[in-house]
């Protein structure tokens, strides 16, 4: 081995020394490649593992926590829900369509690998400003790629979020989430148990695509990254549809001992992880691997990240049955090896052993680092917000339409109308409300799901930002009538070797952990995406939270839009003197500063319990969480669904008008309800010590906001709606 060649593979000198010590010899080229991908941050979490331990991961309902392909939570009736979110940021930056499409393909495989039928997709997307042509190209490609994959495979894309900020211009974030449903006693795991069992590879042929994809994901983007386009894979959703159906058929028949998808680090990862989890070894004959091209070396076959491939372990007497099922689905399946007892992953090509290493050393023995951390210098300045220098809002009638047209707040229909969000006919709350809701066939139940993060808050204060991401996701679910169950997270950060970035990471995880503990939503899995930097500039810390909630009776679901003229409008929660980190300051004053809103988790929990009780007892006709844009934006959004106006009167109680109308104080929800239910709602709120203000009524064709007996806004709903609905389409024309 030439000295230092491991550095080109992304391995540190100390890591190379560890490998030599583990093997008792120098690794050969193939082995070095295998260690380099398995010990990359993407596969080994070597920089993040220690910090992630602070997440609460246990709960009564948790059937599978972190460590497998996806987490699983029981939902009663013998059923369970399986879900996970994962990033595909760097591939999407370089090749938007295929990068996003293969991100969707990968997360779907993670779900059906566990034995679950994928029922829904969501995604969390972040781009630079839409005024930039390159950003529009990237967003167009990403959305088309998600649509191309999800629509073809026939899994509805039901929700998500899209944000825009200059920090994402060179490094967009594309996080894809999949939710699946399974019988709780049919969970499958990626375990190569049973010495002598067959190791079967099925799906697409192996090509030279995506080699070192995970290494690429574990470094910063630079101008040279364009040259890494070959590290991006190409997706084949049709192949995956066949794989999905065939694998679920086999799992249903209990024909498989273990199953795992081939994603990052390809065959190397699937073989070593499956063997390691079961404490076994594997002998693999690379000559048996169906290849797309001739002359592929062992190194290329072991590291290829060709998509739409699955590895499974099957008892010898079921081997023929398994092959016949795959044949019926028109799939190539090949027995490529056997499970062994010695714990060694032994790989042969052309009769020669080309790699021979302990499986566990690849999957489990990567070093763990505790990187240095230091509070970033920018923060002290950014947290200072001198409101004395910011004049209070005077023209609400002009500011509100402008804010509604800000791409971060504007309707995202341009995006979701490209996604088939109805296929499988279970989507009972379509995109556009606080959370999507799907019914569960054969039961009275439903599942609500959402993705959330406000990365501006996380930039200003990662601890609070992490807490708020969890709380807002849960709040969206309760507004839909669901009890929050558990969290999957996608932690998108810059280069963790920079102490300032690692400080952000630690703080955000600590904040999320605290919120998960108080709200009773354990983390069951997720993904860490570091190195989201372009030419040294990191994205905002973006700890995206994916959350799933349960409705015992899906008929008791709720949406955000006002339903009937004459209904009362009520605000639960307290509006504080807050404006820091708001969309209003960013859009109207070009300021990203000030402390983000406070979050008191005890108050948040009380609010959520009150809202959920109100929705479940059918007291309210609508429920909408207050987030970006604050009260006025939330109120306008409630008017759009049914084109119903509203008239409200507020008391400023010493707050500035901008704080009152556009501040983003947490733990607030806007409700509408028939007058006759007010007393019952007041009793519920009083029992939970949740502040309640009666503000006005639904009705008419205008949105009227009066503060301290001054009519500040008197705007036709249709005008507001046009601003909100048309903004993104207008940019993308």
């Amino acid at each position, binding site marked *: 081995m030439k000295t230092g060649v491991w550095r080109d593979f992304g391995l540190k000198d100390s890591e190379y020394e560890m490998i030599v010590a583990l093997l008792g010899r120098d690794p050969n080229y193939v082995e070095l490649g295998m260690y380099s991908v398995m010990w990359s941050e993407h596969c080994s979490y070597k920089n993040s593992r220690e910090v992630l331990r602070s997440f609460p991961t246990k709960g009564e309902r948790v059937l599978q926590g972190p460590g497998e392909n996806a987490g699983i939570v029981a939902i009663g009736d013998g059923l369970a829900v399986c879900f996970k979110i994962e990033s595909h940021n760097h591939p999407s930056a370089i090749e938007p369509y295929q990068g996003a499409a293969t991100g969707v393909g990968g997360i779907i495989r993670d779900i059906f690998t566990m034995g679950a039928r994928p029922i829904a997709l969501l995604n969390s997307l972040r781009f630079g400003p839409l005024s930039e042509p390159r950003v529009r190209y990237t967003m167009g490609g990403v959305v088309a790629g998600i649509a191309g994959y999800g629509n073809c495979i026939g899994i509805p894309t039901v929700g998500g979020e899209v944000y825009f900020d200059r920090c994402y211009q060179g490094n967009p974030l594309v996080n894809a989430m999949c939710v699946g449903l399974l019988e709780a006693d049919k969970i499958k795991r990626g375990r190569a148990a049973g010495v002598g069992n067959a190791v079967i590879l099925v799906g697409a042929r192996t090509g030279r695509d995506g080699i070192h994809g995970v290494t690429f994901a574990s470094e910063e983007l630079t101008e040279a990254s364009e040259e890494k386009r070959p590290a991006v894979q190409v997706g084949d959703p049709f*192949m995956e549809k066949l794989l999905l159906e065939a694998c679920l058929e086999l799992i249903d028949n209990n024909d498989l001992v273990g199953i795992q998808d081939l994603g990052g680090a390809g065959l190397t990862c699937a073989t070593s992880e499956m063997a390691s989890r079961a404490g076994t070894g594997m002998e693999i004959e690379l000559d048996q691997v169906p290849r797309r091209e001739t002359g592929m070396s062992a190194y290329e076959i072991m590291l290829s990240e060709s998509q739409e491939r699955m590895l499974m372990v099957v008892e010898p007497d079921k081997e023929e049955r398994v092959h016949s099922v795959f044949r019926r689905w*028109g799939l190539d399946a090949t027995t490529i090896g056997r499970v062994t007892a010695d714990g060694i992953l032994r790989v042969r090509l052309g009769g020669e052993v080309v790699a021979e290493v302990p499986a566990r050393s690849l999957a489990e023995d990567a070093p763990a680092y505790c990187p240095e951390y230091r509070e970033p210098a920018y923060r002290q300045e950014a947290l200072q917000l001198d409101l004395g220098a910011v004049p209070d809002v005077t023209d609400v009638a002009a500011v509100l339409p402008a804010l509604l047209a800000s791409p971060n707040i504007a309707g995202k229909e341009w995006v979701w109308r*490209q996604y088939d969000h*109805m296929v499988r*006919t279970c989507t*009972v709350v*379509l995109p556009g409300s606080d959370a999507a809701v799907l019914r569960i066939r054969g039961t009275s139940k439903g599942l609500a799901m959402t993705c959330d993060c406000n990365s501006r808050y996380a930039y200003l204060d990662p601890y609070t930002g992490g807490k708020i991401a969890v709380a807002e996701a849960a709040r969206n679910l309760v507004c839909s009538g669901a009890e929050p169950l558990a969290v999957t997270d996608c932690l998108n950060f810059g280069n963790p070797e920079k102490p300032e970035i690692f400080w952000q990471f630690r703080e955000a995880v600590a904040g999320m952990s605290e919120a998960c503990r108080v709200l009773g939503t354990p983390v069951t899995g997720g993904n860490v995406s570091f190195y989201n930097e372009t030419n040294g500039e990191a994205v905002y810390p973006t700890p995206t939270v994916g959350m799933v909630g349960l409705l015992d009776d899906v008929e008791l679901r709720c949406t955000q839009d006002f339903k009937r003229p004459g209904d009362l409008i009520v605000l639960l929660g307290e509006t504080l003197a807050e404006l820091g980190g708001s969309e209003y300051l960013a859009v109207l004053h070009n300021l990203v500063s000030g402390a983000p809103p406070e979050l008191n988790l005890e108050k948040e929990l009380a609010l959520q319990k009150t809202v959920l009780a109100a929705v479940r007892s059918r007291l309210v006709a609508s429920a909408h969480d207050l987030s970006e844009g604050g009260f006025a934006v939330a109120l306008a959004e409630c008017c759009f669904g049914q084109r119903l106006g509203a008239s409200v009167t507020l008391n400023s109680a010493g707050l500035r008008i901008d704080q009152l109308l556009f501040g983003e104080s947490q733990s607030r929800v806007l409700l509408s309800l028939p007058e006759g239910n007010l007393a019952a709602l007041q009793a519920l709120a009083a029992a939970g010590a949740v502040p309640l203000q009666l503000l006005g009524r639904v009705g008419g064709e205008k949105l009227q906001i009066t503060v301290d007996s001054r009519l500040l806004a008197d705007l036709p709903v249709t005008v507001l709606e046009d601003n909100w609905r048309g903004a993104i389409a207008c940019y993308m024309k």
Partner: protein
Amino acid sequence: MKFGVVVFPGSNCDLDAYHVIRDVLKKPVEYLWHQETSVRGFDCLILPGGFSYGDYLRCGAIARFSPVMNAVVEMASRGGLVLGICNGFQILLEAGLLPGALYRNTSLQFRCRFTHLVTDNGATPFTGLCEPGRTLKIPIAHGEGNYYVDPETLSVMRQRGQIVFRYATPDGQITPEANPNGSLDNIAGVCNEGKNVLGLMPHPERAGEAALGSTDGLVIFKSIIRHWEDS
């Protein structure tokens, strides 16, 4: 009466068609694998939506060579009822059972949304229960639903009543704004000369329960059942 839902590799609305017939309409229904060579015993065949064979070529261009398609064509020629929805419509066009072709949407993007349809011909086996003047709220989900047919054929089709559904505003006006994909004359669905084969881009099986936002799609299935019971 028994329905058959054909399953091509890549079909993904097969489940939804099956569900609406079995669980909502409570009628017998079975899946039919694409390699079947006989469709005996079925009174109405549904070619469901999806992406048969991935639709990497022209939509439906490969599926029409599936073994089952010979039996479908044969059944259609005997006057049997065949309903092609979305990708199923594309396959029927490729198989030559219906006239015309489907281009990419003029937006060049996939579109999933509710549309409103007016029934141009209420005298087919698929539309007998459609009330004149009442629009049907039924969603679409496709990237290639932009119907085209040459002018001569179009005028013949009009005379024969082969234009069955057209995109309209909720109150039944045929306008460019109501056209989601650029289809000629807002055409959403057409039938053959014998009126026993219907292809449409909108998904009636997605509009079968109030929870999904509309029950208007049931009118089409109920018309089929009424027609079969009457004949």
